């Protein structure tokens, strides 16, 4: 669906992105992860034909972003970093306007607007002025706007930034719901967001892609698993004993320096820490550390973003 090759964007005195190449398959949800100023927004702006690249090519839904901008624009829904709202318009009115400039045929408009309103949970605020909505609602209007013409591709720039925790959860759930029918690229600088919503992560730092992998390959626990980090003092490898515990699916040794450090994949929502702790004591191991670990994405991220080179 999306193929970029050597995308480079040079602003006066600064290389915003440098030789960015990646591919996104149909139906994938890809998380664009990187610190602020890494080049996430620039890449997205190129993909949405808002800005041309200085060099390199990008094809979206089979069309070149420079040569066939109109065809690309028809195939994407874009939520910029701050939702592009006209604050004096009512929600419904605004969506009506967007449906017109997105080229939704007149006969389809009503249906498309109703659908977006429903999916984004805007039923109660349809007649409110967007300027009077809370940030969370504005973000939802922004999402409704992006999916209005039912584009196969959604490009979402920091969809959860500035929201309170409850709104963040809601927006993430909405994005996951959209995942089935749409190819989605979303950018974020929040790590858990990627593991919670995406299938693949592209880490970008200082304008370069430093890592592009599927979360499965990164041992992300997956939606029904969570991972624990365990460190014990034991005379031999204990991973087999650990796996035999109920609720523990696998135990993997993660330390290379001789310490007995394991990463355990367990059922989500079923805290097995007490069982692991008493088991360790029972076995006569000395328990040094036992804690829940969101994902080892964090480790990787810190490693690639703080080191000069990459590991891609």
């Amino acid at each position, binding site marked *: 669906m999306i193929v970029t090759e050597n995308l480079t964007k040079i602003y006066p005195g600064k290389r915003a992105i440098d030789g960015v190449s990646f591919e996104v398959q149909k139906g994938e949800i890809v998380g664009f992860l990187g610190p602020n100023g890494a080049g996430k927004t620039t890449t997205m702006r190129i993909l949405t034909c808002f800005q041309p690249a200085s060099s390199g090519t990008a094809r979206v839904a089979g069309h070149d972003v420079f040569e066939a901008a109109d065809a690309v624009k028809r195939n*994407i829904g874009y939520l910029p970093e701050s939702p592009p709202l006209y604050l004096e*318009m009512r929600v419904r009115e605004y969506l009506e306007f967007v449906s017109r400039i997105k080229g939704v045929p007149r006969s389809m408009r009503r249906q498309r607007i109703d659908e977006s309103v429903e999916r984004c949970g805007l039923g109660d605020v349809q007649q409110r002025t967007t300027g009077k909505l809370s940030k969370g609602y504005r973000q939802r209007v922004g999402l409704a706007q992006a999916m209005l013409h039912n584009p196969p591709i959604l490009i979402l720039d920091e969809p959860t930034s500035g929201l309170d925790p409850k709104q963040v959860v809601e927006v993430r759930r909405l994005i996951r719901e959209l995942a089935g029918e749409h190819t989605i690229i979303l950018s974020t600088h929040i790590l858990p967001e990627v593991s919670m919503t995406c299938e693949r992560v592209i880490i970008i730092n200082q304008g370069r892609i430093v890592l592009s992998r599927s979360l499965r390959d990164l041992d992300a626990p997956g939606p029904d698993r969570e991972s624990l980090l365990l460190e014990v003092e034991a005379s031999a490898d204990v991973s087999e004993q650990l796996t035999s515990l109920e609720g523990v699916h696998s135990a993997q040794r993660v330390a290379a320096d001789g310490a007995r450090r394991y990463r355990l994949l367990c059922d989500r929502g079923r805290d097995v820490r007490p069982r692991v702790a008493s088991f360790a004591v029972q076995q006569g191991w000395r328990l040094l550390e036992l804690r829940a670990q969101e994902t080892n994405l964090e480790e990787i991220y810190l490693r690639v973003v703080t080191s000069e080179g990459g590991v891609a």
Partner: protein
Amino acid sequence: MRGFSAIYGREMRAYFTSPTAYVVSVVFLLAVGLFFMTLLRNYISFDAYWRERLLEAGREAVPADVHQYLLRRFISTLGAITLFVLPFITMGSFAEEYRSGTMELLLTSPIGQRSIVLGKFAAASTVFTLLLLISLGLVSSLFLYGNPDPTSLLVGFVGVWLQGESFLVIGMFISSLTRSQVVAGIGGLGAALLLWLAGLLGDPTSTLGIWLNELSLVAHFEDFSKGILDSKHVVFYVCFIFFWLFLTLRSLESLKYR
């Protein structure tokens, strides 16, 4: 021209749901009313003086020429009022879209940039035309009391309209350069003022001075205010408007590279 009517409709709605257009309209109509009243009062006292002189000379006391002594002055004044008011109609046209981020929505939608520029121009132009029609209604009250020449009056208003449209396109262009409405408003006023009075910059006897005078908006306005409709001036204004619309379009395109 995909998207033209959507853009035009949204702009019109924005004008009438935000206070800006109302404030600008009130100020415009207030200024028009005040100047009209003052000029009318002057005309009335001049007319009395004029008839007295005629009687003294033993001639028939005909009223002083309404066009010459009232409407011509009023139309020139109206032209000056538009200069000071219209930049504030167009100041938000692009600056506000940049500031709020909605430009990103427009430029990532499958509509032409030409529709964006023309839709906005058409909307600003509609507001201005409405204001002008109201002013024309006010002036037409003169027909209740006398019989001024309607053709000269209309020609004068056509001049004000053409010159005003020119101010609008300058204002839009300046607005396309900045994110700040204040900068766009004041800058638009400055640019319009400069192009209005460009003739004052040069020595009127030198070639440069003649050229500058030919390029200044007010030089082409004179004839209209006298009630003379000359196609030369109409062509000038039309070219002027297209030139600045073109520059605005270019400025919008250059946004990609900024």
